[in-house]
């Protein structure tokens, strides 16, 4: 086995793992604050990226388009909160989950209706070339684009973590996550908080959508990225931000390594299910994930 090649695959995997973590973070945010498992995260990602690209195609500068898309995502998030979630308060978790599946269909339809279904190219101005110093000194190919996007993700994740632990809004968010009623009782405006959470999740979806979109083209298959983030959640625990990050790294690295080292023996294409099976095996040992809250069941 070539050790350089191993590291190359590992680093590539870890970098894409950071991007998975970012997508998974969108789920965790909403799940923590409102107990909703938001299946529509993938569609929001697609919607955000598609809107942004389409705006740049109108000749808007990239940064204006990004700001405009952020506004659109915010409005979308508020609308979701008002139209879908508010009438469903106090319903079982599983019907909320179904509602978000319905929502994902709606958003996918809306996005394609508004902007068309063809594949669009997104250029963020970052080159997809190997970093020269690494290539010359260690003979490892690592794409500049991957490193930059991983850096952006890492920055965003840190900013969010700080936002959650240091600001008063963040404290309110954590209070809501702990106990809705107690939070209401001490005067935290629940609906406002939900609006903020969905808005932040929309923003995270936009960033993730732009990065994935720049890599693979903005197209319908972007919605499947969200499916990749599910095993990350199982592995890391649904309620934990560090879990999402570590889970993302593990899934990203193991997926690429498995594809390279196990894939050839079974015909390849195992990237699609390997993370799930890995997460499944993991669940058998630790049902609440790596960092999830311990589940205590009472009768």
């Amino acid at each position, binding site marked *: 086995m070539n050790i350089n090649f191993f590291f190359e695959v590992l680093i590539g995997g870890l970098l894409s793992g950071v991007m998975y973590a970012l997508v998974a973070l969108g789920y965790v945010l909403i799940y923590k604050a409102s107990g909703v498992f938001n299946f529509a995260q993938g569609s929001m990602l697609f919607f955000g990226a598609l809107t942004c690209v389409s705006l740049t195609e109108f000749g808007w500068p990239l940064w204006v388009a990004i700001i405009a898309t952020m506004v659109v995502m915010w409005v979308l998030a508020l609308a979701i909160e008002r139209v879908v979630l508010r*009438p469903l308060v106090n319903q079982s978790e599983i019907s909320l989950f*179904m*509602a978000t599946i*319905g929502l994902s*269909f709606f958003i996918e339809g809306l996005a394609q209706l508004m902007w068309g279904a063809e594949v669009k190219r997104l250029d963020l101005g970052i080159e997809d070339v190997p970093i020269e110093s690494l290539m010359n000194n260690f003979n490892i190919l690592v794409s500049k684009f991957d490193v930059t996007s991983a850096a952006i993700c890492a920055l965003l994740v840190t900013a969010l973590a700080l936002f959650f632990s240091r600001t008063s809004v963040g404290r309110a968010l954590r209070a809501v996550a702990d106990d809705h009623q107690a939070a209401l009782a001490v005067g935290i405006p629940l609906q406002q908080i939900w609006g903020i959470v969905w808005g932040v999740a929309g923003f995270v979806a936009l960033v993730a959508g732009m990065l994935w979109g720049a890599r693979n083209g903005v197209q319908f298959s972007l919605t499947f990225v969200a499916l990749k983030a599910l095993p990350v959640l199982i592995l890391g625990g649904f309620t934990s931000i560090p879990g999402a990050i570590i889970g993302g790294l593990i899934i990203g690295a193991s997926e690429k390594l498995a594809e390279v080292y196990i894939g050839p023996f079974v015909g390849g294409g195992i990237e*699609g299910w390997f993370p799930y099976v890995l997460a*499944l095996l993991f669940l058998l040992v630790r049902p609440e994930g790596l960092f999830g809250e311990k589940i205590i*069941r009472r009768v």
Partner: protein
Amino acid sequence: MLYREAGQFKSSYAADGQIFPIRQDRIGIMLLLAIAFVLVPQFATPYLLSAILVPFLIFSLAALGQNILMGYAGQVSLGSAAFMAVGAFSAYNFVLRVPGMPILVAFILGGLCAAMVGIVFGLPSLRVRGFYLAASTLATQFFVVWALTKIRWFTNYSSSGVITAQQIEILGYHFDTPASKYLLVLGVVSVLALAAKNMVRSNVGRCWMAIRDMDVAAEVIGIRQLQTKLLAFAVSSFFCGVAGALYAYAYLGTVEPEAYSLDLSFRILFMVVIGGLGSILGSFLGAGFIVLLPIALNQLAHALHISTAVASNVELMMFGALIIFFLIVEPHGLARLWQIGKEKLRLWPFPH
């Protein structure tokens, strides 16, 4: 006035335990079956039979399977299409590789193979519940479709990965007209629906419901989790497997593994939710709704001269919006509406 159980006294245990305790229900269901078996194949057009009724019945069967698992045993699964695929492809291989294999036996064996896969992928349900379980059943979905695509033996080394279902032949009779296929599907679905109805009102079904309502409490009163949960997975996958085999043999004809995608799983999930969780009737109502909705929307788009690209997106949006609408307005599904209607009918015309 007509629909009233007053005066219908039960004087034996057998009468007390019958499936439909109200006489009008019994007559109604007999009439319905008589119409479905005798009149429909006589008078329905081939289009109605093969494009609406056959898929409706097949999806009802799949929805029944999903409902047993989700509505009765409370285990959320997103992998029903995978079990359908296992059923279809194993039935195909049984007919292909075992000479003289009767087709109905192949369907049953296909269902049993699906049940075995169901048991294997149901194992995590013993440790995890809720969303963790839902997400882990996705593993079934991706793994099965991948395995059927990559392992060429399953598709008999066909170059495109597509299989062509064999002729359906029972005791020398060829089922090749739409009407005969419809009758075959109807027969299978009726028998299995009856089995399901009886299962959920027997000991097994009560154990499932106890597990669904509170699994720890169920265990305390002596219901064994391992057997009960895995049985639910097995029965549900069996139903899905048979439905998948019928889907390939009686509806599509030629199938690729991709036909049983995550999309189909979601569709079946929606049928169960819209029809009503924990209701046999609901599975049929939900399947009817989901089968008819795209057709109706298509007709509407055609009538309004909307281009197909726009229409397909509008269809997607309508689909999503309707699901949200149903969840908000009637979370217990169409079956609940039916029940409310029946209650009203019992009191009519004097509501007190």
